[in-house]
């Protein structure tokens, strides 16, 4: 466990020592800012209060941010260590593959969650600049952040796995982007598939539909279990791939 915290600390430091955290943070805040501006305009024109939460957690800007931020945060995790050769130093030190994978995931996840902290100020900023807001229902807001945390964990675990498969960061980012893009495209299946079984499966794994529920304040245990299990499965597969590397 101690090695895990040491490795996690190094991961966090490497995000903030290099330009990655600042580039990703700038990009994220730019998209969030544009979404925020659109939202403020709508509210000023008398849009309903429900738009606030739905816009925060389900707008095209939200998914664009998730799609871009995930590969940017995860592409370097293993690809860079493999390219520089530092993976050899790391995996011949007395640390387990499990702690290496979990520490890298924890570093990316903590950075991802930190990106969301400034958005907590959105409602306060709107009030301060004089936009009239009805009293905010904090239930859907909390559920929206919970949904973002769950979807984010799943996306980042997928990105980490992609980073394990290559020594080129750009390739890892492209594979991750393609995989997540495909997953999000699958969310259209509930509307277009003919077979009810396909529609049901697609509904069960559709992140946009899940986020619509979360933004409405609905926390479905099945959805929570799906994201937790999928994240754990992806991390488990990553650990096994890292262990199997010794046999290659």
């Amino acid at each position, binding site marked *: 466990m*101690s090695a895990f915290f040491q490795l996690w600390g190094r991961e966090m430091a*490497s995000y903030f020592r*290099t330009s990655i955290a600042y580039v990703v943070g700038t990009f994220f805040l730019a998209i969030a800012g544009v979404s925020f501006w659109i939202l403020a305009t709508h509210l000023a024109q008398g849009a309903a209060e429900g738009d606030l939460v739905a816009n925060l957690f389900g707008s095209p800007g939200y998914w664009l941010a998730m799609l871009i931020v995930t590969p940017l945060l995860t592409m370097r995790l293993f690809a860079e260590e493999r390219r520089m*050769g530092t993976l050899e*130093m790391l995996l*011949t030190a*007395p*640390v387990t593959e499990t702690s290496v994978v979990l520490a890298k995931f924890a570093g990316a996840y903590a950075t991802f969650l930190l990106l969301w902290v400034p958005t907590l100020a959105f409602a306060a900023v709107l009030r301060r600049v004089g936009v009239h807001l009805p009293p905010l229902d904090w239930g859907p807001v909390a559920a929206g952040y919970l949904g973002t945390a769950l979807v984010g964990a799943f996306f980042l675990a997928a990105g980490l796995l992609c980073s394990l498969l290559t020594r080129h960061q750009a390739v890892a980012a492209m594979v991750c982007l393609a995989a997540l893009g495909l997953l999000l495209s699958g969310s259209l299946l509930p509307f277009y598939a003919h077979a009810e079984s396909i529609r049901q499966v697609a509904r069960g794994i559709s992140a946009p539909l899940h986020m619509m529920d979360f933004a409405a304040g609905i926390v479905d245990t099945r959805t929570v279990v799906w994201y937790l299990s999928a994240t754990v499965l992806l991390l488990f597969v990553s650990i096994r791939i890292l262990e199997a590397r010794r046999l290659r």
Partner: protein
Amino acid sequence: MADAERLIEVDNLVRRFPRREALAGLSFQIRRGEIAGILGPNGSGKTTTLRILATFLSPTSGRVRVAGFDTTTHSLDVRRRIGYLPENVPLYPEMRVNEFLAFRGRIKGLRGARLAARLRDVVDQCGLGDSSRRVIGTLSRGYRQRVGLADCLLHEPEVLLLDEPLAGLDPAQVRIVRDLLQGLGTGRCVLFSTHVLAEAEQLCHRVLILNEGRLAAADAPAQLVQSGEGGGFEAAFLRLTTLPPKVRNPKKRNGG
């Protein structure tokens, strides 16, 4: 040295990669107090041998024990007892030397006063005093090599495995690293690969000469020269690595 504890035991080691066989039945032993060199042409299996001993790769077959532990079934126990310097000395370029060494010390289980004392010792031992606050990415090859060696020595391992520790260094740096290596054999064993025959001849109690994944010879450099057909150590090396691979001296095959 014949009675000293065997810290490295390699028995009939085979390692296959998808398109080639890197090691084809390698056997040798290294004892405590010994400094041994692995020599051989490019592709002879030196790096693969060191990577297997360091647990970075698994053997395809055969048995490998380091400090009494099997590298496959007890890889963490092995890693606690080795200091491994890979070829090209991969380090995190954004970290400062002292931060990197402290990080490596902590993941190797050192804490508090012991960590601080060991950091002071290895920084002194490797001549890093003036550079300990420098960013690793700005260091020369020679200094990076010293940082890598300092990392290897931090937890006072019983076994040191060094892949080409003299490669890419200028003559002055070679001398510094050679002097450092010379002092490291006491109480542990050192196994390093090199292409610099003169350094191997000077430093090693014994050299293992590999050719096409097989042990061509395992003996003291002076013995190899003596038992040859004239010429120096270089001539002996060239003879052993250009002839079809075979065990030169069966009695010495197991590193006796």
